[in-house]
């Protein structure tokens, strides 16, 4: 009989698992093992790679042209140079604190420069956006409230206050007040740069006028109580600036001190009231005291410098006294010269008075007072004596000379009324006036210089109206620093030792073809032969072509100076002179500065005829 059939497949041997083992757990463990193996393999690989890289350090180098690499190199260099400086200080025996200060300043300055360079690099001014960016950057950096806000954030930690400070919406009261008083005050004081009598505040971009010495009246308590913080700060700075800038009298110093005490007391009270925590109070007070100490030190240094200057000033005063004495003597001579006119004595007195005035303004300490008095007395005495003497000595000639003078000046009214250019110095005015007078070219360079200076000095002293008086021209034209030589004083005088001319137009001279060919006809009918171009340009008169003009002179000014020195110049009419000077100036402009040193230049222009 067959065995029993079955549909069941033959049983496969199955893996018998321990009943406690969960298959999913096993798979999870396998996966974990796989991950660990992979990780280990990666780690090995990494380690191998790192080892390899470690053996080849160049593999670590980033792109040398990358911004990061450049920055790194830059700062390495900065640190290197800073360290060199620090080591030098150390070698010189500087203490650690000093070295630290140096390092900090160097680093912060570098950071600031770097920031500035970055701003400049990124805000390209050639593009509209760059321009607008630059404008915004500038506005944010200089915005006073923002600046204070950042200062406050740094000093008191009120970041929130700083953020609100941007719009000036609501700077937290505590931070803002102490920020304004200490940081703002410090910045304001630091930023103020003295220029003349005023100061410019860079942070505010405006001028603060601190007035002049003596204008700073002591403050009253009532006024201080009414001031707000900004006003107090401004007054505080104003007083400190006045103390630093000027020498204050004892009374003023006392007033300054009272004002400062009141302002600072009010400031401290205000801060005490507003600073809420002990820590803030301590810190804020320290900052303010620190700021004041800095200002105090600066004041001390400035005052020391002023004292030194005062000593120098005294020395200068002594020199001025000496000069003034010389001036007095010169004015005495003036009085003497002026004596040839009818009111010479009065002019002499004026001269002495002017000398007295100059000496009186020359300063000098008590020790020099006696000397000055003696000088004045001597000057007055000399002036009066010489004036009287001159009147007397000139009596025989005065009538004749004065008459000639008057005639001469009447023929040339433009001499005293001619318009001078705006900006002309007294010396230039003098030159313009005197050089137009007939006979001017007879004087040598030194004499002309003396007369010009005389005119200019008188003009400065007497005022603008003076140059329109005939006496002015006459006095200076006749001025002679040397001895009394009435005959030499006025071309046109029959007694003159110098050649003198009538107002005769040049005509027919072969030497003066350019001037219309005129000879210089002397009153006696003779001919003034030497006044030719050849004479003017002779080698023995090199100053004619090499004499430097004054700094700032226009081309026309140079031309007039050069041509005006040539003998014979005065025979040309003002129009002719102008044409020739213009010719010279144009050539000078075209040919360059060297041109005026050539004789050809002078000759060509002197001979120029329209």
């Amino acid at each position, binding site marked *: 009989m067959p065995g029993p059939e079955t549909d069941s497949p033959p049983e496969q041997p199955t893996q018998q698992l321990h009943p406690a083992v969960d298959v999913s757990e096993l798979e999870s463990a396998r996966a974990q093992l796989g991950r660990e193996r992979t990780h280990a393999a990666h780690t090995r690989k990494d380690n191998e790679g790192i080892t390899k890289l470690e053996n080849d350090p160049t593999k670590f180098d980033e792109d040398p042209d990358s911004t990061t690499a450049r920055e790194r190199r830059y700062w390495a260099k900065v640190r290197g140079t800073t360290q060199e400086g620090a080591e030098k200080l150390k070698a010189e025996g500087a203490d650690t604190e000093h070295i630290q200060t140096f390092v900090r300043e160097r680093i912060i300055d570098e950071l600031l420069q770097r920031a500035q360079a970055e701003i400049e690099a990124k805000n390209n001014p050639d593009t509209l956006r760059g321009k607008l960016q630059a404008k*915004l950057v500038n506005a944010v950096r200089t915005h006073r409230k923002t600046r204070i806000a950042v200062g406050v954030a740094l000093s008191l930690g009120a970041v929130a206050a700083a953020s609100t400070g941007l719009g*000036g919406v609501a700077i937290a009261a505590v931070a803002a007040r102490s920020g304004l008083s200490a940081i703002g005050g410090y910045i304001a004081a630091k930023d103020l740069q003295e220029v003349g009598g005023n100061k410019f505040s860079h942070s505010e971009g405006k001028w603060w006028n601190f007035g002049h010495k003596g204008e700073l009246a002591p403050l009253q308590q009532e006024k201080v109580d009414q001031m707000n913080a900004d006003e107090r700060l401004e007054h505080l700075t104003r007083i400190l600036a006045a103390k630093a800038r000027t020498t204050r009298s004892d009374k003023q110093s006392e007033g300054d001190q009272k004002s400062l005490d009141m302002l600072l007391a009010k400031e401290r009270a205000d801060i005490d009231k507003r600073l809420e925590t002990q820590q803030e109070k301590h810190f804020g007070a320290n900052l303010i005291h620190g700021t004041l100490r*800095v200002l105090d030190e600066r004041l001390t240094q400035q005052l020391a410098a002023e004292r030194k200057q005062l000593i120098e000033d005294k020395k200068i005063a002594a020199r001025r006294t000496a000069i003034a004495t010389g001036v007095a003597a010169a004015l005495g001579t003036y009085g003497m010269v002026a004596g040839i006119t009818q009111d010479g004595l009065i002019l002499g007195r004026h001269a002495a008075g002017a000398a007295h005035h100059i000496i009186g303004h020359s300063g000098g300490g008590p020790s020099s007072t006696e000397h000055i008095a003696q000088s004045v007395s001597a000057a007055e005495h000399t002036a009066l004596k010489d004036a009287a003497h001159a009147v007397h000595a000139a009596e025989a000639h005065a009538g004749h000379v004065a008459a000639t003078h008057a005639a001469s000046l009447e023929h040339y009214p433009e001499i005293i009324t001619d318009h001078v250019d705006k900006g002309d110095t007294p010396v230039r005015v003098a030159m313009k006036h005197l050089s137009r007078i007939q006979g001017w070219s007879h004087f040598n360079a030194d004499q002309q210089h003396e007369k010009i200076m005389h005119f200019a000095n008188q003009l400065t002293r007497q005022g603008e109206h003076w140059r329109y008086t005939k006496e002015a021209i006459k006095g200076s034209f006749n001025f002679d620093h040397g001895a009394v030589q009435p005959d030499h004083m006025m071309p046109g005088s029959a007694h003159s030792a110098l050649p003198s001319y009538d107002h005769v137009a040049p005509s027919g001279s072969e030497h003066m073809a350019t001037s219309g060919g005129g000879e210089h006809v002397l009153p006696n009918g003779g001919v003034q032969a030497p006044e030719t171009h050849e004479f003017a340009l002779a080698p023995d008169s090199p100053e004619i072509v090499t004499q430097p003009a004054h700094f700032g002179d226009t081309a026309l000014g140079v031309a007039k100076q050069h041509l005006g020195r040539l003998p014979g110049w005065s025979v040309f009419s003002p129009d002719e002179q102008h044409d020739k000077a213009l010719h010279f100036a144009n050539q000078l402009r075209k040919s360059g500065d060297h041109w005026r040193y050539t004789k050809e230049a002078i000759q060509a222009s002197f001979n120029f005829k329209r």
Partner: protein
Amino acid sequence: MQFDEQFFQDIGLGSASDEERAEMVNKLAELIQSRVALKLSEVLNDEQLQHFDKLIESEGDDAAMAYVEQTYPGYPELLQGEIEAVKREFAGDVQQVMDELKQPPADTTD
């Protein structure tokens, strides 16, 4: 966040005089302000920059700055971030130089 005494300690100014602290605060403020200003200038678009420019011309700095604040409300974070960055860079560089200075000179013998 407080930038008080601890702040100065952190940047190595713990023993510095009040004057030096005040001077440093001034410079740090300038630096931070410059950096903040630069970043602000980069985040505003052309239109905003032009509007800012118009405001400066017509109504002045205060109005223009108020506009920036309104346009870029992330200003407090920007400011704080720059303060931290400056603090870190400044203190780090100073410290590094001072540390190098304390090192004994290298032995140059072979």
